[in-house]
């Protein structure tokens, strides 16, 4: 028996190096530092008057505790597919010219980039809204986890999505920007 089809993510547009915009722009997961400049260079589009780039970066503290670095783990195949699906949905919903995102796995130092989302559209409103939507969904839904490694040598898997405490369903989420 196969899993419930309603839960199976679409495969359309998946792949770590597939194109969602004018050029071939990396997206999905990366065990190496994210090439933010390269992503931005590939995100421009002649029909886009606005390009919005969000960079999620590693803070040196978490709830008052000094942080040495973060370590990200992902269930790779499903995370890649879900990111592709989220991008495809956003691109259609806001008529974007470009929608790309890449998330780090492995160790990420303080100040380094953990995730990048770039959206491009004819006007800025759509690019801003779609960018917020994409990063919110990636944070809440994609099977990616951060482990805070503190300066005192301890570590903690943390900042998990807690929407299920409100929605009563581990698959239903609340998005700040929507």
């Amino acid at each position, binding site marked *: 028996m196969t899993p*419930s089809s309603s839960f199976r993510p679409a495969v359309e547009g998946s792949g770590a190096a597939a194109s969602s915009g004018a050029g071939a722009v990396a997206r999905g997961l990366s065990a190496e530092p994210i090439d933010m400049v390269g992503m931005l260079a590939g995100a421009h589009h002649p029909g886009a008057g606005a390009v919005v780039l969000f960079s999620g970066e590693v803070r040196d503290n978490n709830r008052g505790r000094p942080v040495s670095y973060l370590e990200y783990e992902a269930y790779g*195949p499903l995370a890649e597919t879900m990111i592709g699906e989220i991008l495809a949905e956003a691109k259609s919903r806001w008529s974007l010219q470009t929608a790309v995102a890449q998330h780090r796995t492995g160790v990420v130092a303080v100040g380094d980039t953990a995730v990048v989302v770039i959206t491009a559209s004819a006007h800025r409103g759509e690019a801003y809204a779609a960018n917020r939507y994409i990063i919110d969904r990636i944070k809440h839904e994609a099977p990616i986890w951060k482990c805070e490694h503190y300066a005192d040598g301890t570590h903690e898997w*943390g900042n998990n999505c807690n929407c299920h405490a409100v929605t009563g369903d581990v698959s239903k989420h609340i998005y700040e920007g929507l």
Partner: protein
Amino acid sequence: MKIHVYAGLKDYFEPEFEVEGEARNTDELKTLLVAINGKAEAMLSSCRFAVEEGFIDNAYKLNSHDTIVIIPPSSGG
């Protein structure tokens, strides 16, 4: 059946292991896992489950040859 766990669940289980005993669905699997380590109960209640890279719910009938991925709440970004 084979089990893969991620993130905080690794504080309670090995990353990959096999469970003995019958579990026909995810609720029964949770019961088996809590019997292995009761401290994981609260976290398991907030986890999603996947087989063959697709999410499943309690209506999915587990097979003994399934490899089941247990997915804690996300914390990316």
